[in-house]
């Protein structure tokens, strides 16, 4: 008998199965570390200490997590509408342009708290604009959103390099980057938040955008589960045919969902561009858009899950630096591998263990 239609309680579906898949991913990573002649337990200790050992490392972890929350939300909103947005990377990159243009034009006149709302709007608008064309193509011309968003990642990258090396470049300088923002274009660090816990932020660039990310989580939860639009998006995600029969406008819902998704991806740029580097440079997204896919999958597309998953990936990113420092035989790229395994086990192989759990549940759960 097929096991796919047997219902399982939520704590197994959303708690136990992802957790065990995650453990499997870590187990395989450990095997690879063991295979190259290193001690996986030493690597694990170094990773956790490097990511959570003191206030500074925790702040670094949360700094990475901030970016991943934004891109994770971006991917999740699209998935709820049945759209797989692989373009968060490119949307965040272009979003950085929006944030930087605001920062560059306002930073000498007003303080950061005036610049910030405009920068948020700028980043979201540019990110949404970059998501609009693939969305329109999916909604009106029937082209596959996965392919078009990949293509747009590759169109965005050279576009940004061109703008940075020809238009925004500081005259007389070689580096393809904008000028450094003045204080009015920089987001302040969250020293006080870390000081509450009796620790110090050190050199970590954790900044106000972490709080914006948390607010966005709440707003996304509100949107998806508490509004008519969210209901329409979820219906579309479950069954486009049913949604269209129910009178939900397909094209409009697809486009709005992608605009929100792109806007959230674009806002991610606030964190590295205005929070950390105080300038627009090349490659500042650094793969966070793709991490968002893993974060969203692991968080089961729920904002609360996304926060947890983003922190986990923050730990991996920050801890990865410390592992490669402590154990030179292990490269920082170990993180990409672990990430790949997490996506594989939690995302692509999510149904692998289900039949086993159904059998176990039928044996013990009902007794």
């Amino acid at each position, binding site marked *: 008998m097929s096991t796919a239609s047997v219902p399982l309680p939520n704590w197994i579906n959303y708690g136990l199965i992802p957790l065990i898949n995650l453990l499997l991913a870590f187990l395989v990573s450990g095997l690879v570390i063991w295979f*190259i002649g290193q001690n996986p337990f030493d690597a694990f200790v170094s990773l956790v200490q490097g990511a959570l050992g003191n206030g500074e490392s925790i702040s670094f972890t949360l700094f990475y997590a901030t970016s991943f929350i934004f891109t994770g939300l971006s991917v999740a909103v699209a998935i709820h509408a049945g759209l797989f947005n692989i373009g968060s990377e490119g949307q965040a990159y272009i979003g950085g342009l929006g944030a930087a243009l605001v920062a560059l034009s306002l930073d000498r006149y007003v303080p950061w708290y005036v610049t910030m709302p405009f920068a948020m709007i700028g980043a979201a608008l540019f990110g949404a604009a970059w998501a609009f064309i693939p969305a329109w193509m999916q909604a009106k011309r029937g082209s596959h959103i996965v392919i078009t968003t990949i*293509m747009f990642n590759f169109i965005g990258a050279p576009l940004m390099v061109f703008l940075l090396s020809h238009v925004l470049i500081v005259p007389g300088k070689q580096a393809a980057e904008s000028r450094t923002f003045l204080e009015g274009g920089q987001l302040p660090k969250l020293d006080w938040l870390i000081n509450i816990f009796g620790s110090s932020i050190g050199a970590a660039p954790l900044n106000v955008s972490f709080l914006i990310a948390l607010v966005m989580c709440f707003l996304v939860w509100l949107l998806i589960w508490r509004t008519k639009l969210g209901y329409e998006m979820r219906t579309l995600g479950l069954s486009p045919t049913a949604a269209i029969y129910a009178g939900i406008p397909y094209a409009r819902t697809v486009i709005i969902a992608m605009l929100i998704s792109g806007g959230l991806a674009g806002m991610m740029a606030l964190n590295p561009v205005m929070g950390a580097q105080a300038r627009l440079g090349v490659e500042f997204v650094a793969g966070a858009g793709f991490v968002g896919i893993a974060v969203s999958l692991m968080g089961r597309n729920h904002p609360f899950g996304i926060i947890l998953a983003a922190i986990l990936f923050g730990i991996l990113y920050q801890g990865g630096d410390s592992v490669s420092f402590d154990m030179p035989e292990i490269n920082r790229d170990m993180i990409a591998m672990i990430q*790949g*395994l997490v996506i594989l086990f939690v995302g692509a192989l999510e149904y692998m263990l289900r039949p086993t759990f159904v059998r176990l549940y039928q044996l013990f759960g009902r007794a």
Partner: protein
Amino acid sequence: MDYYDILISVLGSTIRLSIPLIFTALAGLFSERAGVFDIGLEGKMLAAAFAAACMATFTGSAWAGLGAGIVVSVIFGLLHGFASITNRGNQIVSGVAINFLIAGLTVVLGQAWFGQGGRTPQLGADARFVPIILPGADAMRGVPIVGPLYANVISGNNILTYLAFLAVPISWWILYRTRFGLRLRAVGENPGAVDTAGISVTWLRYRALICAGILCGFSGTYLAIAQSAGFIANMSAGKGYIALAALIFAKWKPVPVMLSCLLFGFLDAFSNFMQGKSVPGIGEVPVQIFQALPYILTCILLAGFIGVAKPPKAGGVPYTKER
């Protein structure tokens, strides 16, 4: 340098840059025609490049390198199959996972084995596929027009280049003239019908992924031990995605696949050539335009403005027998 010499040199690099695209796009052709999306082309190419370079380093044999490249690429193809066919996981997610996994794994293993930051050691000529001078190339060189074309574009490539052009008619023959090919295409359009005919959808799709793995093995091997003399981290550099674009641009047909790969290869070669040169009346053309052009063209095609690109109907959907 006169114009003809320039043309010859651009055509020569067009060929060199197209070969990995042709192998990879043909790999995608097999997989997608059987109804399995393959975003993991990029990763399989990279894995094969790493395996080929390692094996060539250890054994000193280019052919052993090719064998290793194919084996490793097929293994990852089977992993994709295990996730997306057997476990009915999302094909896109599985492909993305494989790309990440391989991007990290190759550097980690490379660092552990060779300690050069993920590179493999430089290979000598005997461990690589070196250019073959076709008979009469030197004698022909003096002949106007045809001579340089024969000597510098047609001759002087390595054996994998010729195999790539051979792979195109072979793929066409397999897909359109064999029973396996007919069934493979059918399973990408209507797996239910194939299943009703008593043919295993699962096994057919696995075989399609094995074909794709073999072809990606060739393309990765070409990158690492024919075009270059060793593996460098992330050396596939988005070529897997360009191949995917070429596949769509060719509307999932073998001969157009070759032509669109040559077109994208030409754009690449031309942008390299144009770097720092200025066009009369326009000025310096930014390289970035050529870099983005394949993707822009593919999007325009996908939007249906220049013909319609219709993917196989069952693509991306895991097949479930009725319960």
